């Protein structure tokens, strides 16, 4: 049966059986946790103690990593190209912001409402635009975000328009931990939410659903041919991703107690894409590297060259695309493979 004709009695077929079960075992274990996966959390906790003066910035970094993670789910896994992810970030930010501005400042319920609102926007717009692919899809994601941006801009009686949403009062987390001036609560709050978000996304990408998303990314026509309802699966992924982006926006709103209309802006969609590309897409951890890298680079470049710092970010990106395809993680993977012995 197994191809090679030399069946020399029991020993060879036993060896073949062992090889088979070993291969299946490797395949079945791909979702198990590896030691390396603890590194981001150790670093994040270490940073809490090592940089007490930077915790407010740190909280923004953590919230933005969740945003990058949500983008990775649709772009890196499902292969949905988007330049309008800020639509969901901003929806979540305004949802949590409006609640806190109207006396409902309990943070966790704010996150829940933000997630639902963003998921609803994702579901409704996705069911229309996900029928397209490539450039038309890219343009439509951009349009959705632009329309929401203008809506928030015009509806200034509700959103504060270009002045931003003022007057948010965010209550203590669990009714116990106030958001302090140093950003301690904000940092740990964001870290906790990011951890849960990461756990959920990790579970999704290793589930049969997540694997089928990768299938859609790799060859959509074949997924149709094996009986997948591709649109429904893309829409589910898009809605989940929207919910996570909404939570990220809510985190930023709650920890800064302010929502600017920029939360829905094009830069919010574009920059996160750059951060994810820097770290590496489709790898779950791209944001964990790309977001801090970008934010630190931005900070450094802005100090060295306050006028043209964006040029240097652009140069960094060009270099990554030319020499480190797959971002920082892609480069690291190739290095490890060259050293030998990394199985898929």
């Amino acid at each position, binding site marked *: *049966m*197994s*191809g*090679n004709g030399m069946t020399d009695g029991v020993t060879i077929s036993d060896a*073949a059986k062992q*090889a*088979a079960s070993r*291969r*299946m075992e*490797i*395949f*079945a*274990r*791909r*979702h*198990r946790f590896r030691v390396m996966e603890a590194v981001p959390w150790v670093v994040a906790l270490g940073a809490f103690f090592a940089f007490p003066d930077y915790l407010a910035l740190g909280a923004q970094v953590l919230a933005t990593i969740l945003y990058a993670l949500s983008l990775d789910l649709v772009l890196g896994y499902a292969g949905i190209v988007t330049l309008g992810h800020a639509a969901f970030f901003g929806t979540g930010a305004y949802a949590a912001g409006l609640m806190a501005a109207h006396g409902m400042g309990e943070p966790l319920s704010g996150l829940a409402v933000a997630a639902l609102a963003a998921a609803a926007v994702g579901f409704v717009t996705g069911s229309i635009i996900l029928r397209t692919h490539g450039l038309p899809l890219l343009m439509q994601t951009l349009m959705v975000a632009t329309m929401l941006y203008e809506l928030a801009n015009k509806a200034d009686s509700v959103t504060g328009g270009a002045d931003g949403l003022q007057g948010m009062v965010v209550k203590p987390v669990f009714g116990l931990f106030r958001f302090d001036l140093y950003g301690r609560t904000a940092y740990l709050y964001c870290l906790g939410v990011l951890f849960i978000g990461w756990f959920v996304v990790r*579970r*999704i990408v*290793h*589930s*049969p*659903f*997540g*694997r*089928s998303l*990768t*299938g859609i990314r*790799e*060859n959509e*026509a*074949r*997924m*149709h*041919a*094996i*009986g*997948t*309802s*591709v649109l429904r*699966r893309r829409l*589910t992924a898009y809605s989940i991703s929207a919910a996570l982006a909404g939570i990220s926006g809510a985190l930023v709103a709650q920890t800064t107690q302010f929502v600017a209309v920029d939360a829905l802006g094009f830069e919010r969609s574009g920059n996160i894409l750059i951060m994810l590309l820097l770290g590496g897409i489709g790898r779950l951890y791209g944001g964990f590297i790309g977001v801090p890298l970008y934010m630190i680079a931005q900070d450094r470049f802005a100090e060295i060259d306050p006028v043209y710092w964006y040029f240097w970010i652009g140069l960094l990106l060009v270099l990554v695309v030319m020499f480190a395809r797959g971002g920082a993680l892609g480069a690291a993977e190739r290095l490890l493979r060259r050293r030998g012995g990394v*199985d*898929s």
Partner: protein
Amino acid sequence: MTGETPALETKALRKSFGALTVASDIDFRLLRGARQALIGPNGAGKTSFVNLVTGALRASGGSIWLEGADITHLAQAQRVKRGVARTFQITMLFRGLSVLENVTLAVSERMGMAGDLHRPAGNRRVIIEEAFALLEELGLAEDALRPLKELAYGRQRLVEIAVALGLKPKVLLLDEPAAGVPSAESGVIIETIERLPEDIALLIIEHDMDLVFRLAKRITVLVQGAVLVEGTPQEIAADARVRQVYLGEKGRA
């Protein structure tokens, strides 16, 4: 055989794009367990016929029946669930994924587990074992964990068949299964097709006449979107019209 419901049947199946007709009133029957070939010169509408049957193309008229049930208005995914599977003329696989993953995607879709968000895919041992057994049958076990794109093209053609078999089809449409494969490797593909389970009704769309005469017990000749003739390989080989069509086209037969 008499009075048996065919595995697949089309009645007056029609498809046109504006003035261009790619299928005109095709009446076609594929019996259970059939080994049948669909041949015809380039542009005869063979691949269009496959696309109509699988639902990738919507028919302009006529009907399609699977084991006596009308599937004309079913979407592609639903037809697959009912048992219509296909392979592609140009390999259409998940190039970045491992060979085993290529097949598990099909198996878990068939089992209706592919929409599951909760448990890890690796915990579904039934799926992995079934996919691996398929690879073993096709002599691909040693390549199971390799990324598909690293395989030689002939081996990729075998994975193409394995993915379709993972769907446990009743009707399997093989679109030029040996296309693009060096002749030294095509023998393995032909042997694989010969060993396919007997209860699958096979329709092989082919250019290569050696392969057709070796595998098919019946042959349908398609010319300009219409069935020219159907018969046993001997009848087809002796048919004057078929010769004319093929000799007119650089004497391929």
